[in-house]
């Protein structure tokens, strides 16, 4: 399976500029919230930021490594439950929550990734889906934390010993800072030698082996990194909702993450962030329109796949190409 959105380092800057523009727009959102007096805007913003982190993390393996993981919602769940479970033991520090979430995710990703990566294509999709469901059912039967119904958080995570995160504005900017920091990390990874090898395994694993590089190790490492990043999104989602339940890791959620990545355009990180923004805004907008918004969203998905396969960044590229031609 080959991905069409190829990416050379020389073309990165345009996408980085686009990402910076998105970040700037986010940074200005609180002003907009102040002007319109809508207190929910910050909460919606935090939710979008968290999903943007998860979608970007998924793009790291889906876009650059051609690994279509259909079980990434599991890592959202690990992040969310790390907050709930540690909180119940009196450990409330955000940094500790993130570290534990990442550690658990790393172990899960290492084991399930090692098994899943023995296979390719359709098998890989179905196996990651099955492992995602396994994690889902584990938390469904975890009756100490509400089982299927989930459990409310007593309080949000604490930030360096203060309860600053209880303030929606602070939480919003913490989420934004995490997104920017992880975007920087992901960009560095993609541009590094490791990233080049990963792209190589996407294009042609056999050739990578022929030049003496074992794809498996690189793919597994990327899979683990992606899982850890996604769990950070889970930590923020739990804090945003102040509630944790297995619905965070339902397979529909994994599907939505893939939708975000493809909607934005695979294999350029920025697209995944934009895709998360557009997908969630579209969901909210359709939900206001009708209670049967999922029907419309499904129709939208099918039409998108059939008529605009390279997502928003692909459409933008075509547009700029046409403009350039028009100028000549």
């Amino acid at each position, binding site marked *: *399976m*080959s*991905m069409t959105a190829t990416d050379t380092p020389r073309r990165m800057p345009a996408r980085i500029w686009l990402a910076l523009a998105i970040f700037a727009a986010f940074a200005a959102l609180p002003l907009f919230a102040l002007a319109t007096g809508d207190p929910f805007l910050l909460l919606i913003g935090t939710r979008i930021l968290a999903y943007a982190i998860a979608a970007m993390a998924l793009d790291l393996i*889906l876009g650059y490594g051609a690994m*279509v993981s*259909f079980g990434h919602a599991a890592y959202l769940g690990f992040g969310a439950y790390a907050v709930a479970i540690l909180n119940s033991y009196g450990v409330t520090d955000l940094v500790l929550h993130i570290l534990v979430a990442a550690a658990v995710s790393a172990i899960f990703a290492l084991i*399930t990734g090692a*098994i899943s990566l*023995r*296979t*390719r*294509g*359709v*098998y890989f*999709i*179905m*196996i990651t*889906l*099955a*492992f995602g*469901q*396994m994690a889902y*059912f*584990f938390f*469904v*039967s*975890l*009756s100490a934390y509400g089982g299927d119904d989930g459990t409310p958080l007593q309080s949000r995570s604490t930030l360096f010993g203060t309860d600053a995160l209880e303030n929606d504005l602070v939480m919003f900017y913490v989420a934004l800072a995490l997104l920017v920091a992880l975007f920087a990390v992901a960009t560095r990874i993609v541009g590094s030698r490791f990233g080049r090898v990963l792209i190589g395994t996407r294009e042609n694993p056999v050739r990578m082996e022929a030049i003496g590089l074992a794809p498996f190790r690189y793919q597994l490492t990327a899979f683990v990194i992606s899982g850890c990043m996604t769990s950070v999104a889970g930590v923020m989602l739990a804090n945003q909702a102040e509630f944790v339940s297995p619905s965070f890791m339902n*397979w529909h959620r994994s*599907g939505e993450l*893939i*939708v975000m990545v*493809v909607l934005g355009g*695979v294999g350029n990180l920025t697209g995944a962030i934009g895709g998360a923004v557009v997908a969630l805004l579209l969901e909210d907008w359709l939900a206001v329109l009708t209670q*049967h918004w*999922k*029907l419309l*969203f*499904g*129709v*939208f*998905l*099918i039409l*998108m*796949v*059939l008529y605009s*396969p390279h997502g928003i960044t692909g459409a933008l590229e075509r547009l700029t190409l046409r403009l350039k031609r028009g100028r000549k």
Partner: protein
Amino acid sequence: MTNLFILQLLNGAQLGVLLFLIAAGLTLVFGIMDVINLAHGVLYMIGAYLIATFAALTGSFWAGLLLMLPAALVVGLVIERLVIRPLYARSHLDQVLATFGLVMIVNEGVKILWGVSPLSVPMPEMLNGSIPLIGPLQYPVYRLAIIAAGLAVALGLYVVVNHTRIGMLLRAGATNRDMVSALGVNIQRLFSLVFALGAVLACFAGAIVAPILSVDTGMGESVLILTFVVVVIGGIGSIRGAFLGALLVAIVDTLGKTFGPIVLRFIMEPAAAGQTGRMLAPMLVYILMAVILSLRPQGLFGQKTT
């Protein structure tokens, strides 16, 4: 204890034949068309809703079942034409997305058409009641009938796949699609046929299970994932693999839920054993899949890993 074991084994067999009916279509669609269809679980749900409607209209389960089959065929052909056919040449990622969209559409559509409250289908009169098995052990006739129907379909599929011309084309298609096409077979018609056959089988499974379940919008979801496990364990494209995989998964799942806590009681205290057993039982199937795949990445009867 032995009675409980036999009872659960029969429950496992009943779940197994249902999973097989769904997995058979899915594995053929994967193997022959190389299309990943997330909407296959939804077809199972449609089958249940169709029979609920037709049985209510005609007042008879059997008439409902008879009307359901051609309706299922039409549903399969329409879905193949509108959504699946444009996806043949696409990447698996596109197929995942489009069929995921289809799942959302059908789930919501069913809610609009039939409402959110679960429907029930009356048990056919002649299969009502229980029969004695061994000693005091009783088992519902209808569940035995499901097992029998599933086994009959499995036998029928075996005959069709291994002893007819169509079956020969199916097997050839699963091994090498391009070659079959190059030999002058209308591969497009074969694809439509395979998809419609899979749809009818899944709808049939949904229909025959409807009298013992409540028919609701979530019923396709849980079954879809289990079916994926079955197909992966059995090997993509292999009906024999789907059959063995389905029975294996269903029996491990059913026995694990009942006997997991009992076995654990030997090594830990009862309360902890119950708790751990309940937590581990739903994961057992996936652990089984992981073990089989680490030994045979292509599944039990799989031909190739790509």
